């Protein structure tokens, strides 16, 4: 360990691997200076660990009902977050629900930003009619309110987790395309792009190797800031009964179920609400921290 840090911080690295590892380490040092970002990272890691170890951590099965124990208040021995109207332990359900939340978040991360990045960079790089066509399509998607479009899509595709993810992905790529295109327009006429083009580089090489690395930081930052929105949209779809179906312990669905007795048994809706709140906050803080590390305008200072 003691030999590793000087190796990472060597200003004259000996190999590609060392140089890349060193840069990553420097970014990590910058990131670590921001305490709020570290809290965000902690929350995100906690979410991941929760979902991996849910079966070990959960004291009860999240689906099996136990009517004698229904609607127990929080801090009851054995049910410290209380139970819901079917006598299921809310803490166990939140733990298992983190798996669904993480699954939705990961699927959306793997689809929407990738599509947006490709469309945005291609439109920005080529300009002209390619730009006009791709951006008008983007505008059409942007013109609809996100949740309404997602609702319409789910209504057509039928309710369910995969369809909810698909609907969220389809409605959330246009902002990434916009961001990527704006970033592409600022770099496409730069000398370093001209120099590489002058060396005979193809459009694919330029977009992939030169334009995309410049767009990636702003897209990654937007993704983490949007994660809260994705979780809320998924919860909203669940709340309306169009996302994940009962008896799966999805957080939005749990809030929806608790709505009926919000005034008498407030904990049924409040506990999953708090979980959504904390995870959304975590992703937002993480995004803020990443902005400081990844923003090309702050790099190198």
């Amino acid at each position, binding site marked *: 360990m003691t030999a590793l840090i000087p190796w990472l911080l060597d200003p004259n690295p000996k190999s590609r691997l060392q140089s890349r590892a060193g840069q990553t380490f420097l970014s990590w040092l910058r990131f670590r200076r921001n305490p709020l970002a570290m809290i965000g990272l902690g929350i995100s890691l906690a979410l991941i660990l929760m979902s991996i170890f849910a079966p070990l951590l959960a004291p009860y099965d999240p689906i099996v009902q136990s009517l004698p124990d229904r609607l127990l208040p929080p801090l009851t021995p054995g049910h410290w977050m209380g139970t819901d109207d079917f006598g299921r332990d809310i803490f166990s359900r939140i733990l298992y629900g983190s798996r669904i939340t993480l699954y939705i978040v990961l699927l959306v991360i793997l689809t929407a930003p990738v599509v947006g990045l490709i469309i945005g960079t291609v439109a920005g790089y080529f300009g002209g009619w390619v730009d006009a066509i791709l951006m008008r399509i983007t505008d059409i998607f942007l013109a609809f309110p996100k949740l309404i479009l997602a609702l319409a899509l789910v209504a057509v595709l039928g309710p369910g987790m995969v369809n909810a993810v698909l609907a969220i992905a389809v409605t959330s790529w246009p902002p990434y395309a916009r961001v990527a295109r704006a970033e592409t327009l600022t770099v496409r006429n730069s000398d370093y792009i*001209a120099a590489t083009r002058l*060396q005979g580089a*193809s459009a694919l090489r330029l977009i992939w190797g*030169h334009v995309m*690395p410049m767009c990636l930081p702003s897209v990654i930052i937007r993704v983490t800031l949007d994660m809260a929105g994705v979780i809320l949209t998924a919860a909203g779809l669940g709340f309306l009964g169009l996302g994940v179906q009962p008896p799966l312990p999805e957080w939005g669905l749990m809030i929806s179920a608790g709505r009926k007795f919000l005034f008498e048994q407030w904990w049924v809706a409040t506990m999953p609400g708090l979980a959504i709140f904390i995870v959304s906050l975590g992703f937002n803080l993480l995004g803020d921290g990443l902005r400081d590390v990844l923003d090309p305008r702050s790099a*190198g200072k």
Partner: protein
Amino acid sequence: MALIEIENLSVIFTTAGRKVRAVQEVSFKVEAKQSFGLVGESGSGKSTILRAICGMAPITGGQIRIDGAPLPTPRGRAFAAQVQMVFQDPYASLHPRHTVDRVLSEPLAIHGQGRDSDAKIEQALVDVGLPPAFRFRYPHQLSGGQRQRVAIARALMLQPQILLLDEPTSALDASVQAETLNLLSRLRAERGLTFLMVSHDLAVIDHMCDRVLVMQNGQAVEELSREALASAAMITPYARALFAASADRMLEG
């Protein structure tokens, strides 16, 4: 036959419906292994000529021939292997997120010459007077002069015959300017390169070039040999005025 022949070249940009005649009917020839200078004030169209050769500005009239052959559009890889350019601002011409290693290996990868790229890159760094330890640095870890050396190394990676130099030293401070110019002169002598160099500074041109074309408002004013420049034998008043403006510095050097 001259290596670069430019015949009645015109470049007209259309912006917001207005036509800007950046270059009007300019002709000149550059012999192989010669160093040719284009000089003039800002907006005289000298950089536009370089950009037209590289396909970054539209050729509205006339013709550019390299080695007797008209240029293909788009320029393509064969052109890239023959003609390379060094840009004015070394802070803008290197990708901020690529290491020196990546910058120098890219042309080899494009042209399928990736074999023993390690040795080639280290040799290229040594050739431009940079220590091989700089190989994995990012541009922001280099000074302006060092960046310009990297840019020169990149332009030479494909071993071109012709180097287009767009005010290669105007963004550098005076001492670094001289070093960079000496480096360019040395590389030209060693490799038998042909230079087409743009500058607004006659002192730089006098130091580097065998022949000079003075330009004003997109038009060629006067072509001078080095001897004519040294003995101040200009014919046109504009060339004379330009010469007078930088004469004191030329005499010092």
